[in-house]
């Protein structure tokens, strides 16, 4: 059964209502504006980046820190480490709460990887952000409110998929992350009108499924 969602697991969520200024600075926050931190670890990094961005749309929070861990969740340093640590910063704990609620909601019911093969060994993340928040938009050099296709797959699948996605619709590559990323995947951010982003994500996903089903293509036989 292909294209089953692989739900992300939230491994830990904690809040620091009044974080030490040294800690704030070390994690990229601004002690003059930020006082409280919200921290989360998840076993899937890319859905978490999307969910962190979602949080900036629901509460007055900034994403000050978000980094993937090397080689991914299967090689984590501890049971709570997962694949990513994300940190929200805000002036009050209430804002942090609102941000974390939006973040968790997004992880539970929206952003997730999908299994591209029957054995669930190949994971693909063909996500469409219909309206960017101020975190991802700043990273991508776009404006808040723009649409973006956030596409991730393992190296071979991602490369074939990206070519299909760019040719399938009127989209433009904002950033391409060739392999290896920290988690040994490959990724790309595309932008354009919402419908084009959606068409690109679907084309990408389909290509990943086809490559997974037929890794050696027509020439070398399956």
């Amino acid at each position: 059964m292909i294209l089953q969602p692989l739900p992300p697991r939230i491994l830990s969520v904690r809040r620091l209502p009044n974080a030490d200024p040294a800690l704030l600075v070390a994690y990229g926050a601004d002690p003059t504006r930020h006082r409280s931190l919200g921290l989360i670890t998840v076993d899937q990094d890319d859905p978490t980046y999307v969910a962190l961005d979602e949080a900036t749309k629901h509460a007055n929070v900034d994403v000050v820190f978000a980094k993937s861990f090397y080689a991914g969740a299967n090689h984590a340093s501890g049971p709570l480490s997962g694949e990513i640590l994300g940190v929200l910063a805000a002036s009050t704990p209430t804002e942090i709460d609102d941000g974390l609620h939006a973040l968790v909601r997004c992880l539970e019911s929206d952003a997730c990887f999908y299994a591209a093969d029957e054995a669930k060994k190949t994971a693909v993340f063909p996500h469409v952000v219909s309206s960017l928040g101020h975190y991802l938009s700043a990273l991508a050099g776009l404006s808040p409110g723009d649409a973006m296709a956030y596409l991730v797959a393992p190296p071979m699948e991602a490369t074939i998929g990206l070519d299909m996605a760019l040719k399938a619709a009127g989209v433009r590559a904002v950033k391409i992350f060739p392999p290896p990323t920290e988690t040994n995947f490959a990724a790309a951010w595309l932008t354009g009108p919402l419908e084009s982003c959606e068409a690109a994500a679907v084309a990408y996903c389909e290509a990943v499924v086809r490559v997974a089903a037929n890794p050696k293509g027509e020439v070398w036989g399956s």
Partner: protein
Amino acid sequence: MSRTRQLIARLRDDLGASAPMSLAPPLPRIPEPPSRVFPRRQEGSRYARESAAHTTALLGIGHVGTRYATDVVLQFQAELAVAHEAVAAELPDQWATENGLIGLRSRVQDHREFLLRPDLGRRLDEESLARWKQAGKRGVDVQPILADGLSATACIQNGRALLESFTKSCQARGLTVGVPVVARYARVWLEDEIGAVVGAKVAAILLGERPGLGTGDGLSAYLVYDPKVGNTDGQRNMMSNIHARGTRPEVAGERLAVLARAMVDQKKSGVDLDLSRLTAELGEAASRVPRAPQVRVRLVEVGK
């Protein structure tokens, strides 16, 4: 189901898989907006309370944590929408003829240009000028001009009422009144050219004023003695906030006629005009007593 999940589910069907995709956990029920209602708290400071009662400005609106209260935000958005709509409104082409008035227009071609080029809105276009030279009644005391200005909404809603009360009051004070006109895409200074063409002693332009929060229907009136191109604002007397919640058009027409009479008598207007003996007739317009409170119209009701 989220948009991406819908897309991938459809792709899955297209790829011919038979078993249905497992469902995402249902989204939590979204509470009816606004999800939490924070009622306005009674302001502690007496000064803030009193000030807020005397203005429709956003004073003493309180806060909830780092944010405004829900009703304040909704009211603000609704009022901004009213103002935007008024700025974007245009006077219909046939409005002048439907109301039995002569229609003139400035040199502005379209609404966008009107907003960007105040200078073009201050002069009549060739065709209007020729028509006005023909139709205008010369040598009158007062030339009334109705105009869209920055709010055609205001002109349509209150324009006729103000024009009629102003005309009647002028005649009652023994002033001769010119043929009323409606000017499209007009700025205040257009009154100089229109008045100068017919040699009126006083030109009075009644036009929609720049909309503020929740006030899209306000008219202003600018009066000038000896209208001619090149007059400055120092030579004009003006009255603003002419609408149902400010100065009502009937009252405003009366006061403007008093001003016009004074201009004709003293042969000057603007800063030089002596209003000291007209305090009784002009009411609050000439006095220094604080204005009566304006009532804020609630466009949004929350938590009732």
